[in-house]
């Protein structure tokens, strides 16, 4: 491990002094009293819940603030000794290269090569030098053989690699990553963190990562973590120190699962070594505490036989008639289940759900709802039984008022006014939106908007609800809110199917996990079993849970039971 105190002698690249910032559209400052120095070659992680100001801080580093988002600045920020306000956005980008959260927005070229070259094009670099440079950088991120590919032919991970190359191509000494893990499947996220680490070391970059998925970032060493909440820096310490403190829980950041498990087992965290290193941490003789906690809390759940609500037989589907996306899929979903469908990008998860709700026409097989064959049902007919909620609520919301939005589906089904009102109010009550019924939708938070879209589907009283990535991009508090809400719906007897990349979600909230790879179901079992099976993990691009490693370190012979015990315990402890 590197020594953080040696950085004192290094050159300061970024300095904040009593800095504050207030957007023009806000009543009060989003950032205040920020004092921070980042030194050359450091690797910094900035964490904080949504709305804490962490993205605003990032935007101050690359010049989007104040040049793209105007507002009032107090104090000062210096980039390599230059005052931020004396620069412009282009000069800032010579020091700081940024990789934004949404690879689709960042990837502006029509091919990988063109996109990597974008900054060089803007610098009027001659063609020959440009091609040479692009090939070199593409090699670093392992994309050299994809230069001709168009963005539609790339996976999420490859797109992100291209974006990273595009940010590196102009040789900015600082690289800033804004939520690099959002939208990536677990194994791709892991490789992304590894790649960032390698590049930082090989090319001597100063790296700043903004993320709320702490455990995933800590897969590789970081020098310091800045915890931000309520617009200011609450902690600036090494990962080990931060994990030992109570600050994470207080600020709605999820700590790594193995650390949470150790807390439950009353392990003295300050006595452990390298706590933040997910492979080399050492409990320092306290393994027995974890083991005895496990033995004391261990319980086994008996599966209950339930009626089938959806039965899929021999389902086949392809877009072009040549490459099967779904290849003879058989699946039975039971009444009242809460289940997850996982697998890497493009494995066929979303396609399967689209076939169920009728968005895609299947090539072969049958789908039964209870004991009715629904192959010939229209999209609208199926929607009465099976609701489908898109990932992005903004793609579903079409009215300005909440009441109208929820009533829309009923109106088109010809209900009378009174019935509609009763049904809408009932649904709004279930969704905790009744008090807001007369609000404009634009005044709601993302999580509330998500609820509105769920309500607008729920009002049709489907018995099955399919949700595509319900918690994507949400911090721990919003994630828990959405998931607890879905659990209450599930308790009312609604079958819930979640399509997700989020292994925590799958582990914590579902009783059953279906793994799809290359159009085939390769596993159908409990989440804890899936995440303990190395063969499955590799095939489906998943990531082993750190609880598994903890179980092994503590000599617990049944890691699956240990994971289950942890999850049940956590539900009991849950603050919500």
């Amino acid at each position, binding site marked *: 491990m590197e020594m953080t105190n040696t950085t004192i002698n290094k050159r300061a690249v970024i300095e904040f002094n009593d800095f504050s910032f207030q957007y023009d559209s806000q009543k*009060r400052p989003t950032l205040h009293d920020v004092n921070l120095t980042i030194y050359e070659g450091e690797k910094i992680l900035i964490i904080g819940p949504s709305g804490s100001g962490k993205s605003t801080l990032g935007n101050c580093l690359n010049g989007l603030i104040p040049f793209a988002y105007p507002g009032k600045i107090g104090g000062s920020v210096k980039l390599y000794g230059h005052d931020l306000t004396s620069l412009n956005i282009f000069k800032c980008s010579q020091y700081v290269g940024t990789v934004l959260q949404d690879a689709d927005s960042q990837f502006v070229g029509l091919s990988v090569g063109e996109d990597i070259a974008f900054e060089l094009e803007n610098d009027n670099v001659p063609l020959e030098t440009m091609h040479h440079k692009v090939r070199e950088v593409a090699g670093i991120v392992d994309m050299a053989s994809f230069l001709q590919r168009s963005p539609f032919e790339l996976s999420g991970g490859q797109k992100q690699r291209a974006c990273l190359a595009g940010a590196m191509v102009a040789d900015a000494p600082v690289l800033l990553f804004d939520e690099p893990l959002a939208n990536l499947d677990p194994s791709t996220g892991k490789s992304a963190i590894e790649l960032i680490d390698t590049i930082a070391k090989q090319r001597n970059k100063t790296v700043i990562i903004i993320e709320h998925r702490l455990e995933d970032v800590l897969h590789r060493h970081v020098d310091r973590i800045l915890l931000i909440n309520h617009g200011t820096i609450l902690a600036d310490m090494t990962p080990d120190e931060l994990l030992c403190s109570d600050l994470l829980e207080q600020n709605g950041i999820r700590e790594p699962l193995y650390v949470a498990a150790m807390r439950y087992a009353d392990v003295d965290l300050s006595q452990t070594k390298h706590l933040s290193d997910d492979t080399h941490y050492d409990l320092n003789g306290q393994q027995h505490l974890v083991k005895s906690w496990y033995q004391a809390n261990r319980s086994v759940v008996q599966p209950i036989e339930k009626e089938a609500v959806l039965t899929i037989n021999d389902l086949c589907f392809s877009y072009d008639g040549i490459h099967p996306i779904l290849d003879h899929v058989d699946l039975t979903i039971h009444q009242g289940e809460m289940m997850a469908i996982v697998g890497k990008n493009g494995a066929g998860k979303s396609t399967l759900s689209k076939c169920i709700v009728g968005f895609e026409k299947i090539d072969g097989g049958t789908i039964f709802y209870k004991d009715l064959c629904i192959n010939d049902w229209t999209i609208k007919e199926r929607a009465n039984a099976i609701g489908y909620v898109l990932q992005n609520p903004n793609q579903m919301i079409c009215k300005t008022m909440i009441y109208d939005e929820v009533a829309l589906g009923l109106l088109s089904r010809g209900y009378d006014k009174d019935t509609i009102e009763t049904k809408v109010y009932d649904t709004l009550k279930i969704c905790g939106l009744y008090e807001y019924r007369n609000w404009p939708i634009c005044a709601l938070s993302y999580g509330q908007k998500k609820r509105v879209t769920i309500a607008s589907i729920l009002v049709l009283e489907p018995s099955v609800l399919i949700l595509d990535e319900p918690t994507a991009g949400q911090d721990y508090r919003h994630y828990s809110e959405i998931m607890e809400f879905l659990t209450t719906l599930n308790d009312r007897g609604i079958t819930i199917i979640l399509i997700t990349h989020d292994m925590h979600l799958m582990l914590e909230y579902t009783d059953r996990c279906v793994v799809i790879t290359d159009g085939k179901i390769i596993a159908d079992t409990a989440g804890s079993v899936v995440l303990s099976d190395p063969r499955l993990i590799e095939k489906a691009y998943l990531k082993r849970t750190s609880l598994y490693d903890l179980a092994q370190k503590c000599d617990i012979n049944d890691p699956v039971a240990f994971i289950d015990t942890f999850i049940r315990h956590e539900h009991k402890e849950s603050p919500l």
Partner: protein
Amino acid sequence: MSKKPLFTTKTLVGTGLGAALFIVLTMFVKVPSPIPNTTINITYGVEAFFGVVFGPIAGGLIGLIGHTISDSLMWGTPSWAWVAGSAVVGIVSGLCYYFMDIESGKFSVKDAVILCVLSVLGNAIAWLLVAPAGDMIQYAQPWDYVFAQGLMAFGSNAITTCVLSVLLCFAYSKTRVKKGSLDIE
């Protein structure tokens, strides 16, 4: 007239995406009109809306690029006179940009009237003058014939442009936040 920027990077992106929307709507969205076997072209309402938000240059380019590409995709080659007409609709209705401030959430009934007047004007110049004249020059066609085609296009396009762009502007202005209005409780 206000000193609004003419063509920033944001305008450029808005134009690019607007043109992409133009193509998607032209190619995929078919709304049957009250006259049997004809469809309403809703594209111009969207083009005018983008004009209000991003300005006349953006509006004109959306028509120019969007129509050229969608024609090329559907027919293999653009009909230039009508492409020019689309550009004119965007430019004229885009003049609203100078009279309004929709980005700050303001869109009044008066603004709606101005938008309608400019939309009708734009459609009139486009389909009663530019497109027929272009077709006449390009293919040496009789004026009556090309004008009759233009008149039909004018009738349906002017109505849809007004109705849809006004509805979209009202809806959009409601999603914009006003300065200094956001606060966390």
